[in-house]
């Protein structure tokens, strides 16, 4: 006979418990699931991305109708349980007769705390707990010019504020304490977080106490602070804390304190009643993050199955899910006489790391801006490892520990099992080691079983190193793909190490990555120069001596050693004055050949090297800048004339082309980058074979990427269709920046896309608006340094270097 299990609350904890239960014994239980919310279990944590628009609700549903059906769960969603009769072993819902149980699982979660300020019951005052709250916020944000006030500068409040801001609302956060997230962050990290939020346009008021909520016609209109300040708002979100939801259990006579008392087996004071989740209290502790709840869920399932299991509370760590605000906090970071701090700051990058030590053990960690090493620190903390030996270099992370820092394998061997190797797919070192021990003994097999390195691929080297460490001599790390003979590292490894170890000069790369030659060669040095300037635009100084001649002289060297000169014509548009200046220059410098290029530019071929500065100066005077026709960087934006002239044109295609080129020109990239904009699907500008092409249509702009018309011929693949010109520009910049940051040197975008996958690109450039903005911001920083006309600079400061250093024609005959 099946046992009857009744579950109250379809939340994250009970959902996980049911998964464990069914995995072990799918047919032994007759389950009825009540939920006050009119839906089944969803990933509550991900409400924040739903709020910000980065995800849609269906994407965060954990258990759908099919799942409940397949597991034979009787669902009573939208029905609150009002009474438990332990003597009769029944529960009663809002509708229907008492329902008998053999075992009862209480998982009622918690209730948001509402401060009983005057006016707290006005319309528009909401908490942040469920889909209804989220939808209420989304609706409020839909009204143009609407304003929000969020009370509470903790995790939930800040995620709400960031989401509302992304939806275009004017947002103010009111926080009682002196700095944000004071329970997770110290003051310094709180300061950086506040700065990041203020940079996004969110107003943040700390040390501010709310006095009264003002309203009109039963609807909220403003929040009044203690000091009399009024903050007008259309909605007011209270995110000041949660209280375990114990009412039902207490009424039924179960032992409760702050939460429902449970023992190590998740049993309440009644051996037929279990409880899990935020509603419980275990050894005096209550819970607010899911990691320990998942452990509780496993234990509860085992207890139901009659297996001995004990819940052991674990250390929890916090990360804020606001894209672009990387913070990490774990353990205890209060001050105390018995503690010591190790602090690292990098003001330019907004990085702050602090470790709190007691008796040579890490007891707390707070990191902001760069959390790459957080899992390693967290591991040392959980394991209470003695760090005396590595104290000096501890703060720099695992890459600096464990013997010879030049051997990347040693660093990988030192990583704990839960260190994340593949960030795209969330695969830890332990997962990979398990797969290897399960028989996956090469990269392809590991990729197939764990997905590690299957997405963007930048962790491929790390995965191979894990293979090497795990299999020992049985696995030879492939050396074939190393950058060149000067180094054993691959391009991907080098890019990753330059970022993670903050190598900001060529000397640092040669030294830290154990280059075998003094200063590289013609293969690796241009690549390293590019990686450095792309990753550290402000810190690294571009090195002309590490560039191929074309980029060094800003002109294309020709077969006979002369050069070609191509002035920029934004969007392929020119004027009679420019044409006249070009013609004059051609005459003055005896240009033998003038050609119109495929990218809608005029090419003056056969210019002598020593004439370059002079011809550039002449073209500069006519208002023209370098066309970078020689560069691995932004080349041309080709356009058709669009709707101003063409009867088929749907939009101002040349106008968009000009804007794109004005934004992007001057930037360097792993390889050349060519664009085109056509005014209608007839596609005169041949946008469908470019690195990025835009086709204007009645409803907006179709953006395609990854085209090629060289040795390979490829049509672009659709990246997005958007309604506004600004969005088309934004996406173009973000795409270019992502390519600049992650592609291997000399990979054109189509090759790069083939490696990382178009979906991976879309997630970052299209779906995740924060990431898109962050890419745009980083591009802007780079352009602040690199968008300058090299011709003007060279003609002014370096003209001399284009001449022979000496002329011995008279002496040589002697």
């Amino acid at each position, binding site marked *: 006979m099946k046992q009857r299990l009744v579950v109250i609350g379809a939340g994250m904890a009970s959902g996980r418990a049911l998964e464990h239960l069914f995995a072990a014994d799918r047919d032994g239980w007759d389950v009825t699931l009540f939920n006050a919310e009119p839906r089944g279990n969803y990933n509550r944590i991900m409400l924040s991305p739903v709020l910000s628009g980065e995800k849609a609700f269906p994407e965060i549903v954990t258990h759908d109708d099919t799942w409940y059906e397949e597991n034979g769960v009787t669902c009573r969603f939208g029905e609150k349980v009002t009474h438990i009769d332990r003597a009769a072993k029944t529960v009663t819902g809002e509708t229907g007769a008492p329902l008998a149980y053999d075992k009862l699982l209480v998982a009622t979660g918690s209730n948001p705390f509402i401060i009983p300020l005057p006016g707290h019951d006005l319309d528009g005052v909401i908490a942040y707990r469920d889909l209804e709250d989220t939808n209420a916020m989304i609706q409020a944000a839909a009204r143009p010019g609407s304003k929000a006030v969020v009370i509470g500068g903790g995790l939930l409040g800040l995620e709400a504020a960031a989401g509302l801001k992304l939806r275009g609302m004017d947002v103010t956060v009111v926080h009682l304490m002196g700095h944000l997230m004071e329970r997770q962050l110290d003051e310094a990290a709180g300061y950086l977080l506040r700065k990041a939020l203020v940079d996004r346009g969110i107003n943040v008021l700390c040390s501010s106490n709310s006095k009264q909520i003002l309203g009109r016609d039963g609807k909220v209109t403003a929040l009044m602070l203690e000091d009399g300040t009024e903050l007008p708002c259309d909605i007011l979100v209270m995110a000041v804390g949660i209280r375990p939801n114990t009412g039902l259990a207490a009424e039924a006579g179960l032992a409760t304190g702050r939460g429902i008392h449970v023992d190590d087996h998740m049993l309440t004071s009644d051996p037929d009643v279990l409880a899990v989740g935020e509603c419980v209290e275990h050894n005096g502790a209550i819970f607010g993050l899911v990691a320990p709840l998942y452990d509780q869920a496993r234990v509860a399932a085992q207890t139901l199955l009659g297996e001995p299991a004990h819940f052991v509370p674990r250390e929890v760590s916090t990360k804020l899910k606001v894209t672009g605000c990387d913070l990490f906090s774990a353990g205890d970071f209060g001050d105390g006489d018995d503690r010591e701090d190790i602090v690292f700051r990098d003001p330019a990058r907004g990085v702050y790391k602090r470790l709190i030590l007691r008796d040579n053990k890490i007891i707390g960690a707070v990191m902001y801006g760069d959390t790459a090493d957080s899992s390693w620190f967290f591991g040392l903390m959980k394991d209470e490892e003695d760090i005396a030996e590595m104290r000096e270099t501890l703060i720099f992370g695992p890459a600096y520990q464990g013997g010879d820092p030049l051997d990347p394998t040693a660093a990988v061997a030192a990583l704990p099992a839960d260190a994340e190797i593949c960030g795209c797919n969330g695969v830890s070192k332990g997962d990979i080691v398990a797969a290897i021990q399960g028989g996956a003994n090469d990269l392809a097999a590991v990729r197939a079983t764990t997905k590690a390195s299957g997405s963007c691929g930048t962790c491929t080297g790390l995965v191979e190193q894990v293979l090497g460490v795990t299999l020992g001599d049985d696995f030879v790390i492939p050396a074939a793909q190393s950058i060149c003979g000067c180094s054993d590292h691959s391009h991907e490894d080098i890019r990753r190490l330059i970022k993670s170890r903050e190598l900001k000069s060529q000397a640092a790369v040669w030294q830290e990555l154990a280059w075998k030659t003094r200063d590289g060669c013609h293969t690796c040095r241009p690549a390293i120069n590019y990686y450095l300037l792309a990753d550290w635009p402000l810190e690294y100084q571009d090195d002309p001596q590490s560039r191929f001649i074309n980029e060094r002289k800003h002109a294309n060297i020709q077969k006979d050693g002369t050069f070609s000169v191509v002035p920029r014509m934004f969007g392929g548009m020119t004027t009679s004055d420019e044409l006249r200046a070009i013609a004059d220059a051609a005459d003055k410098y005896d240009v033998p050949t003038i050609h119109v290029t495929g990218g809608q530019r005029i090419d003056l071929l056969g210019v002598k090297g020593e004439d370059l500065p002079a011809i550039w100066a002449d073209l500069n005077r006519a208002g023209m800048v370098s066309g970078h026709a020689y560069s691995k960087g932004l080349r041309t934006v080709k356009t058709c004339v669009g709707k101003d002239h063409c009867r088929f044109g749907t939009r101002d295609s040349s106008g968009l082309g000009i804007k794109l080129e004005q934004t992007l020109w001057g930037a360097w990239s792993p390889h050349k980058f060519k664009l085109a904009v056509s005014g209608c699907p007839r596609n005169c500008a041949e946008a469908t074979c470019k690195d990025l092409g835009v086709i204007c249509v009645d409803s907006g702009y179709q953006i395609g990427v990854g085209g090629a018309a060289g040795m390979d011929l490829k049509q672009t693949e659709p990246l997005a269709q958007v309604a506004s010109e600004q969005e088309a520009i934004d996406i173009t910049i973000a795409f270019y920046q992502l390519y600049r940051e992650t592609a291997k040197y000399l990979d054109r975008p189509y090759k790069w896309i083939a490696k990382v996958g178009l979906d991976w690109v879309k997630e970052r450039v299209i779906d995740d608006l924060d990431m898109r903005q962050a890419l745009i911001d980083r591009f802007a920083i780079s352009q602040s340094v690199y968008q300058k006309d090299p011709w003007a600079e060279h003609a002014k400061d370096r003209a001399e270097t284009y001449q022979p250093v000496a002329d*011995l024609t008279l002496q040589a005959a002697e």
Partner: protein
Amino acid sequence: MTNWIDIGALDDIPPRGARVVRTAHGCVAIFRTGDDQVFALDDRCPHKGGPLSEGIVHGASVTCPLHNWVFSLETGLAQGADEGSVPSYSARVDSGRILIDAAQLSGQLSDRSAA
């Protein structure tokens, strides 16, 4: 016999870079390495005439900008699988000035024109 002549300051050439000296018999490339040694080679690649002065200087080698042949600056010999050599001349730095041996320069050049 040597005839050292001053052709310019070391700082006229960027480290890991080159400039040319025009001579009656064609251009000679003067290279400055990362550690401030100087070398003089004909500015003509034996492969298809590429201007070596425009190549990337690495260690004591230069890579031709046209087809990536690599030459030792010390010997003028092509490295790796490629075969060929570039005439080279004595050059040195003295008190921040670059000196090359004009005697050798004219000697080599006349040798070559005789050949």
